């Protein structure tokens, strides 16, 4: 009886599924596919009169150097900021793993950057990083040299600046995940290792880190995907400049769809990005499952 109940279709989810299909899947799948196969510019004619062009728009995107550069910038931006978030977030979490006096205050301090509105972050850093701004003055004071870097006016400093600001904004997210991971770790293996005379470094690398690997991989995946889609800070800070040096994929997509009003090209670009992200997510899930299996094998109770 219980088994039959478990297999019965749950009719009460039908309204939710209907809403999801009508308002999420149909617009995304149907309209996106439609627009990416039909040439439509938003101010030329009605969308249902758009000419069918097959895969021409995809070919146009794949032949556009601007698309590739935007993709490369996004991948570098997401990769670099993710790794830095992980390293710094993990370090902070490790320092905070044991209770101590004032821990609550530091916890609040560390997560505050994540609570600030992205546009506000953009505007504030714009002021902080201006050539004669406080950041350069601080660096000048520390180094004893006159530092007057134009952080947003030159290619490499501009790109490094947006990575730095992304790391500042999102390290708390990784910090929270790592702290949860560290707090939820079983204590017995660590206690046992201590009793057996293992050094703190050995305990860290051979017990704690392997146990944390699934959390680390999860943090990497989530942070990387989030960073790929970062738009408000980059737009408010540089709008893709100087020149095109910080024109990441979201910026390029926004310009294509909402300034060029080339809805078809925007749809095609979105699909290609979706495929790339899906491939990355698939790879990451494979790694995650492998980590999970490895952990289960390691800690399977002996027969």
């Amino acid at each position, binding site marked *: 009886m219980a088994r039959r109940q478990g297999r019965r279709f749950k009719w009460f989810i039908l309204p939710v599924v209907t809403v999801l299909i009508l308002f999420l899947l149909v617009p995304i799948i149907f309209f996106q596919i439609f627009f990416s196969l039909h040439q439509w*510019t*938003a101010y030329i004619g009605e969308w249902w009169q758009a000419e069918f062009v097959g895969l021409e728009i995809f070919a146009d995107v794949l032949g556009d150097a601007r698309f590739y550069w935007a993709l490369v910038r996004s991948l570098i931006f997401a990769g670099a900021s993710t790794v830095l978030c992980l390293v710094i977030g993990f370090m902070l979490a490790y320092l905070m793993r044991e209770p101590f006096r004032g821990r609550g205050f530091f916890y609040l301090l560390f997560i505050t950057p994540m609570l600030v509105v992205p546009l506000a972050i953009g505007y504030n850093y714009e002021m902080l990083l201006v050539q004669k701004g406080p950041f350069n003055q601080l660096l000048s004071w520390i180094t004893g040299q006159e530092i007057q870097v*134009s952080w947003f006016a*030159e290619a490499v400093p501009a790109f490094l600046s947006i990575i730095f600001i992304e790391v500042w904004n999102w390290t708390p997210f990784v910090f929270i995940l790592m702290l949860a991971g560290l707090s939820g770790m079983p204590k017995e293996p660590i206690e046992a290792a201590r009793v057996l005379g293992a050094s703190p470094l050995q305990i860290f690398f051979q017990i704690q880190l392997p146990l944390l690997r699934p959390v680390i991989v999860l943090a990497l995946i989530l942070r990387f995907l989030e960073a790929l889609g970062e738009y408000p800070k980059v737009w408010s800070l540089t*709008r*893709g400049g100087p*020149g*095109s*040096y910080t024109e990441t994929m979201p910026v390029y997509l926004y310009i294509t769809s909402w300034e060029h009003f080339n809805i078809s090209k925007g749809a095609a670009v979105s699909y290609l990005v979706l495929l790339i992200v899906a491939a990355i997510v698939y790879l990451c899930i494979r790694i995650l499952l492998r980590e999970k299996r490895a952990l289960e094998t390691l800690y399977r109770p002996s027969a």
Partner: protein
Amino acid sequence: MTDRRTFLKGTAAAGASLLGGPFFAADFAWAASVPGDTPEQRAINGAKALKKNVDLNILIWGQYFNGRMRELAAEFKEKTGIGIGGVQDLGIVAIPGKVMAESMARSSAFDIVHVGAGMIPTLANAGYLQPFDKFMEKGGMVYRSVGPQVEQTRYHGEYYGFVTDGNVHMTGLRKDLFDNPTERKRFEDKHGKPMKWPETWDDYLELAKFFTRPPDLYGVSDLRSRKWLGPIWFLMMLYSNGGFPFGSDMTPTLYTDAGRKAVEWYLGTKPYSTKDIAVWGTTQNIPFVAGGGAFMWTYWTGGPATAERQNSKTHGKWTYGVVPGSRMQGRLVKRSVSDPVIAVTVNRRSQNAEAAYWLCQYWCTPKHSTEIVADPKLTFHDAWAPEHMKDPRVAAKYTPGGIEGTAQCLQVSSPPILLPGNLEFTDLLDKNLADAFVGTISGDEALKKTEAEWRDVVKRVGSRLLVKDLASYKAAFPKIDLPKA
């Protein structure tokens, strides 16, 4: 009807120039069928005749919908029952995307949209905008500008909006340094000629070089950043060289002698500007210049109005005049650019389109537009109409020198790329000019790349449509080489 309308417009324009123009005008006062002695009164009577009590929704940047503009809307509500209810406050650069989304959704959410006139061809093509002409005749609207600004709100012979912000570029320079005898002697000793107002862009760069003394003073501070309308400066230079972005068949014509000289001047400001200019917008640049960071700028007139505020470090230290030009055509030609000319437009799908029109007329009559422009708290509605130039309140806000400079620049002001898809054409030019400014590509490469990208746009949008629209674009150009005093 069309012939009568054209005749009336033509008569008005000719009459206007006899009265001390040049200015561009659409004067329907004698065509009015709504009673009233003034266009304001006719707007009120026209709205009252609808017998509606309605609050309109407007999409506008909050910086614009303030002060006198807001007060006039409240007055109109009191007199007619038609007023402003919902205000969607959105930055001027974000409004085009928002309006396009509204158009795609065939939405009637907004009755009035305050948008750059450069978007009018695009939005009119998309079927979003209500043509004004029949209401203008009915309401006997008087609509005239010093330069061709009103033409920017006209598309295929119909008006689609009324200007509220004329936005023209004017040149300002520090007269305390310009008039300084020591500086003048040094300049003369160095260049073998007296220091004078820059008549050409070559003179402009020469002066900028002379006054570049980092880190305290830079010679010039004109925007070159992505998305901050760098193309405006380039187009000023291109137009003054006799260049035009397209041929009569819509073939891009940037890589020409006129274009190459223009890009050389455009990039030539780099050594005389602060490095940050590559990413600065108006919010950074105005305080920098008002604080004494630069000797000279060519800027929207709102910039000088801010620099002249009482609490500005450079209050009273500026002199203004017409932008530089070019002798490339064998004579001196000066071209400023009015971009964005911001206009109130009406959504064709609004359920209160006529009511919305009457409010727009009420705002934009010569009398009320003067009050809006003269509002000392609002620095964003810049002067554009002949009445503005003579009003003492406007002169107090811009300074007499500033208003004189504005009037001169308005006479020779030209449009941005006034075609459907103007944002795309402008973005592609902007991106390539920005890349050239930071050194990724050369000026010539920027022009060639832009031409190639524009060819793709023309092919996609359709050259037949765009060729037809060239007439509207060209109609928005001045008919004189130099402004009259």
